[in-house]
């Protein structure tokens, strides 16, 4: 029941606020898969996603007093996880070897063909994108940020953000086509 869950969640959050470790772990396990669903698309593998999730939860437990009870906890957690993903990207930016020199090419894929791709496969091909394309694509397409906001958040120019998005789309479409050649009846 929604009411019971809501009450239990608020009680749990209050206990976490007071620093009870066992209740923090309970909250962590309760939202672990939800958090992973978000962080997996920002990371190259599961290990990296776990690290981002744990970064996010450490921040969350440190700032639980800022959480307003009448707002959605899931939405608040999601925002923290996205910021953790951005922080992770910026922290590791210098380790990424951006040897990928790509140009956006027009790729054509039908809606019908795209609908045959599973959610898990979509996540998988997003994770295969180079980090700089992946983060722009996620922030623009999934989270709804504009290029100005993306440039502020990850420290790139607006033009770079637009370019990265176009290349990310192109790569994804191409990958979708090649990945599911037997299933997709490609056009053009």
């Amino acid at each position, binding site marked *: 029941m929604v*009411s019971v869950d809501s009450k239990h969640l608020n*009680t749990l959050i209050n206990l976490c606020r007071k*620093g009870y470790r066992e209740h923090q772990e309970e909250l962590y396990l309760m939202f672990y898969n939800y958090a992973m669903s978000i962080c997996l698309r920002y990371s190259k593998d599961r290990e990296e996603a*776990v690290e981002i*999730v*744990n970064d996010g939860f450490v921040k969350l437990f440190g700032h639980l007093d800022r959480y307003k*009870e009448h707002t959605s906890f899931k939405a608040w957690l999601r925002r923290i996880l996205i910021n953790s993903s951005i922080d992770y990207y910026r922290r590791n930016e210098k380790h990424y070897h951006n040897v990928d020199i790509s140009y956006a090419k027009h790729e054509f894929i039908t809606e019908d063909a795209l609908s045959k791709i599973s959610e898990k496969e979509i996540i998988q091909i997003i994770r295969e994108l180079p980090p700089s394309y992946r983060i722009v694509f996620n922030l623009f*397409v999934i989270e709804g940020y504009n290029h100005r906001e993306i440039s502020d958040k990850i420290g790139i120019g607006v033009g770079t953000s637009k370019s990265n998005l176009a290349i990310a789309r192109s790569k*994804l479409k191409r990958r979708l086509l090649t990945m599911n050649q037997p299933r997709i009846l490609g056009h053009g």
Partner: protein
Amino acid sequence: MDDKDFDKIIREKVDAFQDSGHDAHALTDLRDRLSHLPAIKNAWTGGRTAYIVGSLALFTLINFGIVWYFSEGRYAVLTDEIGQLKNERIQFISLQEELVELKASRVDTVYVYRDLLTIRNTGAAGLQSNNDAFVTDNRYESPQSDPFIASVADYGLTSNNRITRHGMPKYLPEVAIFEQPESPIKPEKKRIPNKTLWALEKHNHKGLDFQFGIEGMFHKSIYDFGTGDINGSLGFMTEVIFSPVLRLETGIHFGGRSYRIKEHEIKDLPPDFFDDYPGYDDQIGQLIGLESDAKLVKIPINLKVFGILDHNKKWYASAGITPEWATEQELEYKYALNAAKPPVGGAEYSSFIGSKQEISSAFYVATLNLGAGTEVYLNKQLRWQIGVFYQKGLSKAGVENRKLHGFGVKSSIWFNKP
């Protein structure tokens, strides 16, 4: 398919993705990272509790300290004054007894050294005239000063020369003995006027005085949007008595405040009214009822002005503020399901869901207080006050940020030091 459609489909698929994997090391890693963090919130919670307990202890200590300090100093003066008054009272009683004794032992035998007194006229008028002469000659200052002498006209003489009623001899004897009737002296009790009492109290008041009391009150809150309940509270109070006219009342009250918003009242409220209510979720169903219960610790601070009504009664008027600390607040929502489709012939709603939201503590400067009442002196150490009050919300109170006002009655027993 253009980019916009492509993005939309990708977004829908990504949002629908639910990870179901399990990473055994994830929790271990989190534990390891949390172990490096101090349990700040535990310390903070304890600190706040300690702060509250400490503040209350300090408040109590200051009150008792002030009382002790001033009482000790004043006791010496008071003891001296009481000693003096006791001595004066003993002297007064002694003098009063002496006076009574003296009045009672007034000479009741009159020795007349004159041989004879001739009655020049007969009849009552003549006798009175002779009596006047008799009294004057025998050194009575005034015949009217002695009621017995004044009524001598009613008396006559017997054969053995005693004056009796109804006898009317021609000559008075050499010696006449007048028996004075018993005349008890009973001092009349006179009530001192209120004005004098009040002036005396003002005159006798020295320095600060204190009294402690237990106060109970019943209060009804009034809200524009719902129905306030009648709530009670119990308080431990102190009055700092600056003068017979002016006192400062403060203390600590424990009580509650509750209200409910019923379905018909909800319908009249603006759509965004419940946005400030924590835990309110219109996705559950249509809200058809709300109950708010708060446990409060209140610290009333009131100035009280007194005036005299009677030798043991005073009136008072008071004004002040009451900061409040909501130690706990519970909001209970009642939602209706299928509100749009009531079952035919059945209740309006097919089912309900209750949702409770418990809110942690918060502090508010809550109300402006105005009050009036009366104080009755039960005995030297015990006073009873009863009065009415009105409260006006100064700031928005409660986690839902609502202003309130209300009224109530309160009664208190005050203990003054002996």
